[in-house]
Every structure is written in structure tokens, then in C-alpha cells.
């Protein structure tokens, strides 16, 4: 390390310099303040996960209300308006507040560990992403508690239904600004991950040695960074229309509502891959570990992930086959969509190849992973049926679509995320979930899920439209709907078991051994839970499945580690970033500003904006400072050159 780098840290002089009070750096390691000001990627990831799980339950309860309303024909449990609010918030919540942040939680906690880094590239930016996400979530949901009500224009918010004329209350403004903030949070986080993966890899960790989960993190981050701007612009346009009377979607002045759909789906389709690629990454970690052999065809799995990401930008109009695009455009998007089945199939084949010849350990994560392959395959096949545009003309906006995307979203994303939680739980929390209860929850979820969503294929083919709060009893939909609701209750019970067991394990579960599953990637080389500084010594990577290699070349690695530890000490120990309050301040400013914008209140918007600006300014002035840690033989900090505490 050269001199320039060190100059960022305060070790030059023994005494920390006197600073204006505003540059106070919080040092608490426990308690509320420590969580609010933390820049530790593991804590941030943990909070992402916690919020996401809460919203998963919220979204799930909304889903249950939807299902209860549709249990029997002509039901009166919910009013039309309540129902419309319910599916809008269900979709928005599940996608933006549950699955995406759960993905972010894994990116945050696991990815730096897998590449042998001590943190992400911009720890404070990471905190800002988290808090801005929280701000967005608040704005999105605040309508439940206000007279205007929560958003009810569908998760796709098609113009001109979102215009003042058709949606005069602030509900839609909440939706617009909430999503806007979530977009900022996601982009900031994704930029951070991109830089981290590219720049913070341990020595020897070449791109083609990256664990597949990290690769999928990278691809997902690119998708976020490149797709969110489209919806940002679309939302800006809606907001301008609503607040300043512009004409983007105002038909009487020549506006074209269809433009919203294009901009939305330019974002929206990559978005669904943002939801599935992390899941595929998780599966690509679990299968090798529990088969005790490396991923089959690593390069092609990685490449197909990137190909899916890239192709994801070329197919958006398959959500618009019924908008009258004309034959040529329809054909082009139809073919492009089918093409995605190829790289996706490659993944499925390689996963099976991974299993082939392995010693399959049938533990809970493995059960969910296998469930994923089956269910995702079914969801993918109905996707291909949609891709055949003329057939889609019958399926679009029917329950067939609902069946398709719940198979890929629950059978795909959620199954994989639940698998991932079980898989990394021993590492992050240090306890391991009971195999019996884990498997039980899996089977209940698996059965409940299929009972809920399989009949929906038939509902859709039998002409049941989606987003309908009621239906008549003479349409032939009664049985399937009834079964589906029973299924949802079973599914809910399964998820209930899953989380109960999880919470129990968190407090009382069996302690996990180090490297609980005989893991293959670097995160398993750490004690559980991993210390604040992650790696005592930055590892040197010699092969794919770096930790597996380490375990089989222990002497060589021990020698290397000892040398590097000495080097580290010579450079003044492990440097750690200070906590900071300003990311939180800046996000709070964004929250206030968001409210100001919703209510079209200039003063509040200005206050929020100034807070945001002040937060960012102070954040930049306080600088990326940190302190140094020295460790004893057991890895406990012995001396902390950060003098004041």
C-alpha cells in the first residue's frame, strides 16, 4: 500500500485532530445509534433483510385478502376500491419492498465475503441506499394511514389512469414519489456493488473465479443501473403532469399514453430479471455445496447469466402484445422473448449436471433449491407460451399471466431466497435451523404454492381476467378459485411455520459449527458470525471455489496467510471506516422532500432538499476517514488507534 492511501486515515498523528462538532463520528458498536449510523455491510444487509421480511409478510397478508375476496363468486369482503388498492400494493410491495431488498440483503452480506473484501467500496453510500429505501417504503405505504388511501392504479400504473383527472387524490403521488426514492436507493446500491465487485476482489480472485452468486450480483446491478433510469423518467413525466399540468400523457394536447407503457416496461422487464438473477445465483451456490462437487459448466453458467441480463433489454414489448404494435414489431419481440429460453435452459441443464454424480445432502436449503428448479421450469414454460404473441392475446391480463409470474416469482425468486436464508443462516447468525422443521415448512409451502397457483392456469384459459374484485358464479371459475384460496391459506401456514422456526432458531436454535455445510466459497472460511473486519488476513485466491481449495491445500495457505498478516501489521493494521450520521440525515431529507413534493408544498420540499444537500455536503467534508484495528491471535481487537472512546 502506498502513502496516498494511508493519508486518508488518521493514524499519521496519535491524537485525532480537533474537529468542529458537526464532524463527530459515532463510535457506538451496539444500541440504536450503532444501527442507525452503521456503515458495516453486514449490519446494513441484515437490516435490509429484516425490512424485506416484514414487507413480505405485509404483502402476503394483502395477498390473503385478495384470495379471500375471490374465494367465492360475488363476495363482499372487500369493496372494489379496497380490492384495487390491495393488488396494487401487493404487487408493488412484493416486488420493490420484499424481493428486491431481500436480494440487496444477500448482496450486502454475502458478496463482499465471497470476494474476500472487508467492506463495500463506499460504505457510507451503502448506508444511504438503505435509508433511502426505508424512506421510499414509508412514502409508498403511508397512504394506508391517511384519508387519501394507498395507491390503487396497479403496480404498472398505466397512464392516463394515473393522471389527475382519473386519480385526483394523493394516493398516486405517494406511489410515484415512493418509487422514485426506491429507484434512487437501488441505483446507488447497485453502483456500489459494481465498483466493489470489480475493484475489491482479493488477490487472485479473477473474474472467472468469482462465485456465481457474485457474478449474478454484478449482472443484477448492471440491470438496476441501466433499467431504473427509464422508470425514473417515466415517473418524472407523470409527476410533471400531475403537479405542473404538462402534457406527456394528456391526450387532449396530443399526449400518447402508450409511451408510459414503453418506458415502464423498458424498466419492467429487466426488473423481473433483477428479481430472478440473484435467486439463480443463490441456487448456483447451494447445489454445488450440497452435491459436494463444483458447478457444472461454470463459464457457460456465468455467460448465460450475462446473456439473460442483456437479452432482458430487448424484449420489453412482450408485455404489450395487445397494444396494436403492428406485425413486424410484434414478431421481433416475440422471437427475442423466446430466445431468452435458451440461456435460461442452459442454467437448468447445468444445475442438473451439477447434481449428477454428486453426494446429494438433502437438507432444507437443498430441498428449496430443488423445488426452485421444478417450479421455475414450469413458470418459464408458461413464459414461453406468452412469448407466442397470438396465443398471448388470449392470455394477457388473464389469470394465466398471474399463474406464470407467481411460478417464477414465488417458485423462483422466493423459493431461492428462502433457500438462501436457510443456507447462510448459520454463517450470519451462528445458529442452524432444525432440519425437520425446515423440511416441514418446505413441504407445506411447496404443496400450498402449487394448490394456489396451478389452478390459475385453467382460470386464465377459461377467461378469468386479472384485477377483478368480483366475478359471477356462472363463468365456471368457482371451483378453481376456491381451491386456490385454500392453497393460499396452506401457503400462508407454510410461510408462517418457516418464519416461526426462523425466529425460534435466531434466539434459541442449535449453535452452528464453523463451515457448517462444508462450503466451497470464501465466506465459509470465516467464523460465525463473521467479525466486523471480516477477514483477519485478506485471502489469496488460487482457484474457483476458493475455500474448497484452501481446505485441500492447508499448509500452503497457512504459510501464505502468515506472511500477509505480517505485511498487514507493518502497514498499521486493519483499517476500518468510521460510522457516520450523514447518510441517515441525507435520506431523511429525501423523505421530507418527498412529502413536500407529494403535497406540492414548496416550503417542505425546500426544507427536505436543503437537509439532503446539507447531509451530502457534511458527508463529503467529514471525509472517508477510519481507524486501525490490531488483532491478537484469536482475532480479538487488542488496540484501537482511534483514541477517543
Amino acid at each position, binding site marked *: 500500500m502506498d502513502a496516498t492511501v494511508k493519508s486518508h486515515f488518521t493514524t499519521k498523528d496519535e491524537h485525532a485532530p480537533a474537529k468542529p462538532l458537526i464532524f463527530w463520528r459515532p463510535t457506538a458498536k451496539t444500541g440504536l445509534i450503532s444501527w442507525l449510523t452503521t456503515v458495516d455491510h453486514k449490519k446494513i444487509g441484515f437490516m435490509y433483510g429484516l425490512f424485506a421480511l416484514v414487507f413480505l409478510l405485509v404483502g402476503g397478508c394483502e395477498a390473503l385478502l385478495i384470495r379471500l375476496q375471490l374465494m367465492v363468486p*360475488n*363476495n*363482499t369482503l372487500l369493496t372494489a376500491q379496497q380490492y*384495487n388498492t390491495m393488488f396494487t400494493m401487493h404487487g408493488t410491495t412484493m416486488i420493490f419492498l420484499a424481493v428486491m431488498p431481500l436480494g440487496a440483503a444477500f448482496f450486502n452480506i454475502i458478496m463482499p465475503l465471497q470476494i474476500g473484501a472487508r467492506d463495500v467500496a463506499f460504505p457510507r453510500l451503502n448506508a444511504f441506499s438503505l435509508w433511502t429505501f426505508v424512506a421510499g417504503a414509508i412514502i409508498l405505504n403511508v397512504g394506508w394511514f391517511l384519508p387519501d388511501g394507498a395507491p390503487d*392504479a396497479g403496480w404498472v400504473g*398505466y397512464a392516463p*389512469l394515473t393522471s389527475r383527472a382519473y386519480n385526483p387524490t394523493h394516493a398516486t403521488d405517494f406511489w410515484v414519489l415512493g418509487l422514485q426514492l426506491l429507484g434512487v436507493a437501488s441505483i446507488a446500491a447497485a453502483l456500489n456493488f459494481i465498483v466493489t465487485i470489480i475493484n475489491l476482489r482479493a488477490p487472485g480472485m479473477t473474474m472467472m473465479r468469482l462465485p456465481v452468486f457474485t457474478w449474478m450480483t454484478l449482472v443484477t446491478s448492471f440491470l438496476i443501473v441501466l433499467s431504473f433510469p427509464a422508470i425514473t423518467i417515466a415517473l418524472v413525466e407523470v409527476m410533471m403532469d400531475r403537479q405542473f399540468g404538462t402534457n406527456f400523457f394528456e*391526450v387532449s394536447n396530443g399526449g*400518447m*399514453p*402508450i409511451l408510459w407503457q414503453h418506458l415502464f416496461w423498458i424498466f419492467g422487464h429487466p426488473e423481473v430479471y433483477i428479481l430472478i438473477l440473484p435467486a439463480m445465483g443463490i441456487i448456483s451456490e447451494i447445489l454445488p455445496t450440497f*452435491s*459436494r*462437487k463444483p458447478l*457444472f459448466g461454470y463459464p457457460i453458467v456465468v455467460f448465460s447469466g450475462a446473456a439473460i441480463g442483456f437479452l432482458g433489454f430487448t424484449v420489453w414489448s412482450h408485455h404489450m402484445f*395487445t*397494444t396494436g404494435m*403492428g*406485425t413486424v414489431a410484434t414478431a421481433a419481440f*416475440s*422471437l427475442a422473448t423466446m430466445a431468452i429460453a*435458451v440461456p435460461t*435452459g442452459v442454467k437448468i*441443464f*447445468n444445475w*442438473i*449436471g451439477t*447434481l*449428477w*454424480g454428486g453426494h*446429494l*445432502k438433502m437438507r432444507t436449503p437443498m430441498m428449496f433449491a430443488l423445488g426452485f*428448479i421444478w417450479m421455475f*421450469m414450469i413458470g418459464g414454460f408458461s413464459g*414461453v*407460451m406468452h412469448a*407466442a*404473441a397470438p*396465443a398471448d*392475446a*388470449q*392470455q*394477457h*391480463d*388473464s389469470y394465466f399471466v398471474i399463474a406464470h409470474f407467481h411460478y417464477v416469482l414465488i417458485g423462483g425468486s422466493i423459493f431461492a431466497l428462502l433457500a438462501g436464508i436457510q443456507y447462510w443462516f448459520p454463517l450470519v447468525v451462528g445458529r442452524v435451523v432444525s432440519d425437520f422443521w425446515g423440511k416441514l415448512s418446505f413441504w407445506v409451502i411447496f404443496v400450498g404454492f402449487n*394448490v394456489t397457483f396451478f389452478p390459475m392456469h*385453467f*382460470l386464465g*384459459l*377459461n*377467461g*378469468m*381476467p386479472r*384485477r*377483478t374484485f368480483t366475478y*359471477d*358464479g356462472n*363463468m365456471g371459475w*368457482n371451483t378453481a378459485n376456491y*381451491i386456490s384460496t385454500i392453497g393460499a391459506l396452506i401457503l400462508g401456514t407454510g410461510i408462517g411455520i418457516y418464519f416461526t422456526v426462523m425466529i425460534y432458531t435466531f434466539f434459541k436454535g442449535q449453535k452452528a459449527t464453523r463451515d457448517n455445510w462444508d462450503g466451497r466459497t470464501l465466506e465459509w472460511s470465516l467464523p460465525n458470525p463473521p467479525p466486523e473486519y471480516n477477514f483477519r488476513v485478506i485471502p489469496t485466491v488460487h482457484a474457483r471455489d476458493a475455500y474448497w481449495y484452501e481446505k485441500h491445500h492447508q499448509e500452503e495457505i497457512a504459510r501464505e496467510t502468515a506472511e500477509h498478516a505480517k505485511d498487514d501489521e507493518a502497514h498499521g493494521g486493519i483499517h476500518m471506516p468510521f460510522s457516520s450520521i450523514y447518510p441517515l440525515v441525507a435520506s431523511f431529507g429525501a423523505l421530507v422532500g418527498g412529502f413536500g413534493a407529494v403535497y406540492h408544498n414548496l416550503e417542505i420540499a425546500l426544507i427536505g432538499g436543503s437537509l439532503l444537500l446539507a447531509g451530502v455536503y457534511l458527508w463529503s467534508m467529514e471525509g472517508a476517514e477510519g481507524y486501525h484495528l490490531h488483532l491478537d491471535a484469536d482475532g480479538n481487537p487488542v488496540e484501537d488507534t482511534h483514541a477517543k472512546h
Partner: protein
Amino acid sequence: MRLNSLLSTSARWGRAALAFGGIVLLTGCDLNFWRMDGHQSTIVVDGPVAVSQRDLFYVTCWVTFVIFLIVGSVLAYTTLKFRARSSEEENAVPPEQGHGNPLIELSLIGASVLALVIIAIPTLKGIWYTHDVPEAEKANAYEVNAVGQQWWFRFEYPNEQIKDVGQLVTSNELVIPAGRPVHINLRSMDVIHGFWIPKLAGKVDMIPNRGNFLWVQADQPGYFWGQCAQYCGDSHAVMRFRVIALGPREFNDWLNRQMEPARTVKAEADRPKAQFASYRTDFKRNEKGWSDKFDLSPLDSWRAQQEPDPKAEDVALILKGRATFQAKTCVNCHTIRGHEGMGVTAPNLTHVGSRTTIAAGLLENNPEQLARWLRHPDEVKPGNKMYHGIGGMAGYMKKDDTGKEVPNIVLTEADISALVAYLSSLK
């Protein structure tokens, strides 16, 4: 021992299946959730467009089903075969650390591409076929305009010009000639709607400021269910419509009658005074709006609806209804051609009595349901414009100076029965 565990596993599954079946049977359902022969089926269909779409669906279905069988069997086999059955097996010397096999991977890619080509070819054919009326039949095609509005449909017949008035306009029930391609222009006046007659063709959206169209053909005379298929606000779910396909002669008769102005009932000396039963008033929210009889053979119901039944008509009441229609400002929004009214923001009611449904396909058009609609439009159709007003025109409610909604049109039960009698007479 293996057999034992297998037995106990299957016993467990069996019990689970029994329990599940029990739940379902107890609640009186039959398990045939896979039935696909409803009024809006996309599988049991009646026209060439829908047939081609269904056949394409079958292609995709079979191709993916075969792939599923193959991949699934391999996956199942692998899982069962390589499963570790004991902790010794789990912790045995790790298996060979293989890294892949390019040949297998490439051939699987090739196979996938091939499978997709099988789907792609009929897809491309279908895209061009379903897009517009085939060239050869263009000359024979009949033209209609369908306009979506929150939450009902207006249908226009540009070929049928009425002197001094313009084209023929109807609402919520589209009557088309059977055995002939029909080219439907799709327009919207407010938000995006979707025009979908599952048994005749897949949907196409009605998008403001966009000139979409669709073609359908009903092979036989028939009665078809239609549905708005694009979320369009509160009452999207109950934005429905009906399509009636008629043979050439019947269709022409229908057109001729529709071109006539609204029917005026004359007092005739020998006509007995009809007795009106009082209408049900205790409808629950979302309660179904049709009778079982209607459902049995809807086309016959429709035909029966065309003919006035002078014996059941109370002339005085009808006349009173006509006056009420004007007095209560219904005319601001509705048109009854030949009688009063020039409103264009609401369904054209000129021949409303001859339709089988009202309120955009939601309710059967019988006196009881008509009364239900007039009494509580908002309960029948949440948010509807007849109740809340539209485009500055007050409905049952209007906005006062403070922007609060206050009652505007108030109908007594007497008004309602008069209006029902009048509207029902408009055959």
C-alpha cells in the same frame, strides 16, 4: 427396509391426499378445476381467429410439455439416484470434482433452439393471420367502431347512416353478422381499456389517441361474453359487454329496427292495465344480477327480448316515465333518439329495452335489475359516472362549492317504476 420406508412414504402421501380431498368434498365442490368450457373460454371457441390462437397455444403447450417430461425425468432420476441416504454417504470422500462437458452443453443448446423454432414458425404465421382481415375477405368484411369509456362500451356502425342523425349507435351489446369477418376499430375516450371476446378472438387494447383495431368472425349465430381486459379503475371488473352474432337475414332485420327512432307506446282502448309487482329492494353489494333461466340459452333470451309485449305494458306509467326521464335530467347524458335527450357521455338508450343486459353486461335487463340499477348505481358499479357525474355534468351526485358531493338526482320508488316501465318499452 427400503420397501418399508417406501410404504410409509406413500402412506403419508395417501393420507395427505385423503385429507385434502376431504376438505374439498366437505365444502361441496367437485375437483374439476381444469374445466375450460365457460362463457369466456379461450379453449372452446367459435371463430377462426380464436381457433388459430388456441391451436398455437396447443403447440406451445405440447412442446414445453415434452421438454418438461424429459428434463423432469432426468432431474427426478438424478435426485433419487445420487441422494445420500446416510450420513456416511454424505461424508464419504467427495465425488469427482468435474467441471462440465461442452459437448453436452452445446447439444442441449441446439436442442432448445430447435424446440423454439417449432414454436416460432406457427407464431409468426399467427401474428400475420390474426392481425387483420385476410386480404381475400377484406371486401366482405363488416366494419364497426367500439369505444371504451369508464365503465361501458359504445358501439358505432359507420355503414348505417341515419338521415339527419349520423351513424347508428348502440351500447354494451354488439350485434354482428355471423359467418363474416368483422373489422372493429377500437377507441377510448378516457383511460386504456381492453376489448376481449374470448370465444371469438384475443384482446386488443383501446388506447386513447391510438387507432387500434381487431378482427373477429363468428362462424355461427351465437351469444358471446365480452370483458374489459385492461385495468381501468374502480369498476374495471364489471366493465363487460355482450356480442350477438346473427345470420344475414336476422342481422339485417335487427339493423332496420335499430335505425328506427325509439318506440313510442300509444294508448289503446282495449289494452288491459298491467300490474306491476313491487321490485326487490334488498340487493346486496356484488349480488349476482342474472336469473338462471337466462343463463340456459342466452341467444333465445336475446331474441325474446326484441319483441315488445304490449300486454305487460302500462301506457300511463310509460308516459310518466318518459316525463320523469326528462325531468330528472337523465337527458343530459343519455340519448333516446326520436324522444328526448342528446347526451353523448352515457350509453345510448334508444333501444335499451331490446338488450339483454344493462350496466355494461353486468345485470340482466329485467325490470327488477333495472330498478336495482336506477336505485343505487353506485352500489352496483362502484365509482360509476352516472352516480358521480361526468365531464362537468352532474349525476345522482354533484359537487357543491366546497367540492363536497351532495345529492342531485333523487328518485322515489314511484319514479323508479315509471322509469323502468318506460325504459323497458324501448324495444
